[in-house]
């Protein structure tokens, strides 16, 4: 076989193999990254965190009802629930996880409203204005429910975007994989053709390599 042809054949096969290995490695590392990185984990944390906040607001409402009905002996529980509700609000408004959401006008307005509701509620509790406090906790519950809805929507949007991106990457890898196989097959064909061209069949049906 011509040396140049042999060189081209070997180069194609080695290049094809290298490309196949690289594609496989890239796909594997991308999948590993998907399962472990902060980004992917964050996506799964938005909605449960909002659900937990809604639960804490419900606990605040229950405690408010108890204090309203039974008096100041349960005030400690109410104040604890209020502090926890404040901390949940700070989590949703200041946490790194919620920065993209805070860019949305609807969400940031909600955060402002929740902050106002909490301050108002604290003030009403201090004044023992239970009827107004009850109205405020209702408003607070509705606002927190909206936070849950927006968090769920954001989480779904991020998951969809991520799935699309992953699918696009998978297709790119598939194309590269096909190219790698084509390169390897071409190299192999060139090698075979090269070898076959060296065979000369004599009239006496004897095969000689030339």
């Amino acid at each position: 076989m011509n040396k140049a042809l042999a060189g081209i054949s070997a180069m194609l096969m080695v290049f094809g193999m290298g490309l196949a290995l690289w594609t496989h490695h890239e796909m594997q590392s991308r999948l590993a990254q998907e399962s472990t990185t902060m980004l992917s984990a964050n996506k799964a944390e938005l909605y449960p965190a909002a659900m937990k906040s809604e639960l804490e607001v419900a606990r605040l409402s229950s405690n408010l009802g108890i204090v309203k009905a039974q008096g100041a002996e349960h005030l400690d529980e109410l104040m604890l629930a209020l502090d926890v509700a404040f901390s949940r609000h700070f989590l949703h408004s200041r946490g790194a996880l919620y920065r993209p959401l805070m860019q949305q006008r609807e969400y940031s307005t909600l955060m402002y409203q929740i902050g106002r509701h909490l301050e108002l509620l604290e003030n009403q509790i201090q004044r023992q204005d239970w009827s107004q406090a009850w109205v405020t906790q209702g408003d607070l519950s509705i606002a927190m429910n909206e936070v849950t809805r927006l968090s769920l929507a954001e989480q779904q949007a991020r998951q969809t975007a991520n799935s699309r991106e992953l699918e696009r990457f998978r297709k790119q890898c598939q194309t590269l994989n096909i190219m790698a196989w084509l390169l390897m097959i071409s190299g192999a064909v060139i090698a075979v053709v090269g070898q076959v061209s060296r065979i000369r069949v004599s009239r006496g049906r004897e095969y000689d390599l030339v």
Partner: protein
Amino acid sequence: MIRWIFALVMGISLSATAADLSIVDGQGERHIVKTQWLMEQFPAEPIITKNPWAPEVHTYEGIDMAALLAHYGLDQAPVRLIALDNYSVIMQPGELDALRSPILALQKDGKPLTRRDFGPSWLIVDFDRFPELDVERTRNLSIWQLAEIAPES
């Protein structure tokens, strides 16, 4: 008069940082201890970091978590960490080492952590120094408003 009593209770509630920590030791005995006393007994190097919940850099000071667990015989068994809001997480033996010397923070920038600011005690990991720790499991273990530590049976 009732209003004055109410205001007094309210004032106490607002100023309280609930600085007691309930610890059930390895023998099952419950201890209610002041976190300030624990800080004096098991001092830890301050951690200067930001984290996913407080994205600005702050200095956290508090208790050496590993020393605390070892003192109460909880370093070789799974422990359940329970927060004031009833959130709880089980920490397996060895997980604390994987978190690279976290502290039970009681102060942020020299001021006691309040309940509204994720206090009175918050398990802080040095995310700035070890960014690879910023994964879901670490975030689950970074419990705030910690109220109780108990062995998980």
